[in-house]
């Protein structure tokens, strides 16, 4: 589904502090599978995730999404692909404070201009699915860490993306909540979603729900 060829990514290119976060990555990510990028801090996991998710462009190399080369597309088109194809769950959840859970969930769909009733119905359905129906009108800063993550997952799913991307999803959760997250992962896989995670949490990496683990170190694939 997603194919990366010769991906390299530099930060501060041409300056004294030039740094190559990725040094030639070639991988193919299968559809409807759960793939984990594993590696120590600074190995390039998050950078690779941003390139796959169209949040940034590679300095060199090609990204193909369903056989279409998207690495050279202008920002507007990348945004459109990002919105339609990918759903993101960030490490810090990145919810908009001051807004209710349901409003946060609906946010990614605003630029699509769906009828309000339909959008709200979809958001309520997702919150109910993630056992958050009773918290839908609570402001997100009043929710617990686990609840916040479930709001972030609901938000990632609102545009019905084919791919869900999660960056260190269990980094801020205790063991019980991490297991709960793995349950959600299972559900997503059953729904036919392609899931790509970064993690160095053994609980996630060794979970049965994970189909494939890709090891990274110093911007290269090691296994």
């Amino acid at each position, binding site marked *: 589904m997603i194919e990366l060829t010769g991906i390299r990514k530099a930060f501060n290119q041409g300056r004294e502090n030039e740094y190559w976060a990725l040094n030639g990555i070639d991988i193919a990510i299968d559809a409807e599978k759960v793939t984990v990028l594993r590696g120590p801090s600074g190995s390039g996991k998050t950078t690779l995730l941003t390139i796959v998710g169209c949040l*940034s462009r590679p300095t060199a190399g090609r990204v193909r999404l369903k056989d279409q080369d998207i690495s050279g597309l202008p920002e507007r088109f990348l945004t459109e692909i990002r919105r339609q194809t990918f759903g993101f769950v960030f490490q810090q959840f990145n919810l908009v404070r001051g807004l209710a859970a349901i409003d946060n969930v609906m946010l990614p769909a605003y630029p699509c201009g769906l009828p309000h009733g339909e959008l709200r119905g979809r958001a309520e359905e997702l919150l109910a699915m993630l056992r958050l129906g009773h918290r839908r009108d609570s402001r997100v800063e009043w929710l617990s860490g686990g609840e916040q993550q479930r709001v972030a997952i609901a938000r990632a799913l609102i545009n019905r993306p084919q791919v869900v991307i999660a960056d260190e999803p269990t980094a801020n959760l205790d063991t019980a909540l991490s297991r709960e997250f793995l349950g959600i992962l299972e559900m997503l896989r059953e729904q036919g979603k392609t899931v790509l995670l970064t993690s160095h949490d053994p609980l996630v990496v060794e979970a049965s729900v994970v189909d494939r683990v890709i090891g990274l170190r110093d911007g290269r694939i090691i296994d």
Partner: protein
Amino acid sequence: MAAWVAKQRYLIDYTVASLLRRKGKNLGLLVVYTLLIFMLASVMLFSHAVRREAAQLLEGAPEVVVQRMVAGRHDLVPGDYLEKMGRIRGVQAQRGRLWGYYYDPVVFANYTFMVPVAEAPQAGHIAIGEGIARARRAGPGDVISFRSYSGRLFELTVDKVLPAESEIVSADLVLLSESDFRAFFGIAPNLYTDISLRVANPKEVRKVAQKIADELPDARPILREEILRTYESIFSWREGIVLVLLAGAILAFAILAWEKAAGLSAEEKREIGILKAIGWETSDVIKMKFWEGALISLAAFLLGYAAAYLHIFRFSAAFLEPVLKGWSVLYPHFDLAPSIDGLQVATLFFFTVFPYTVATIVPIWRAAITDPDAVMRA
């Protein structure tokens, strides 16, 4: 189309929610902004209305008024001047006017005594302006006594109080008969305060004035258009003074608005990053933030302008009265006829709403074009 409309609605909904989330900051800004618009609009509305009022009043005034000068001072005009002026070509009608000032020590105010052209009161009777009626607490049927400059006491019966709509000119006016006027001020029968002339052709007014000055070297013709120009400059000057006084407030607001609008808080930058990461386009973010600035400035403009309108036309410009009206001792209680100058509204709008909205756009644009992956690393 429906999707586009729905999208705009979502953007506006989000903008309003965003404004409410930062209630303190936005409300403070709105209050200061509204106050500034209120002050500026009040000065502009008042000056415009009062200038218009003055122009309308003078429309009915004679084209030329002739005074006689003696030793550089305004003196009484002999009656035979009327005949001499009547012979000048272009003069349609001429009339001797009788008016003068009187200081009333009872209420410490100056009145204008005048013999009207038509419907002069009978001897022993007067009509008075609202200002005098208020100051002396007099109404129709009451007797008012004035001590003339010769020391003689005159007791005059009030026939009527002049209508309130003419108060801008009649607040301090006492209309009386010619005989009472002459007796009160001790003016001989064949002398007048000045002479008014009607000139049919507006193009001849200056020529007529020149002929008068040539034939009667001690006469001083005053043209209506000159009086109008004087009014204009007096009100413009006063408006200028108030605006200069307001300049400090405007500057303070400019600094506040710039600080509020131009600097995005870390929270706002984070929010922009999140929106971009979850699929909002740069243009959506800019639009949303633009609406935020535009809503505040438009609301402030409308509230401030409406408050100024009420202040000037409903509450008689209570705050500006001492500076802008400055009439005489008896302030006229006049309600200005509501009038709005489109160009003035546009000018005020352009110098307040426009710069603020632009000031909000630049930093947002800068924040909105940053790569959306920044949020992954926050």
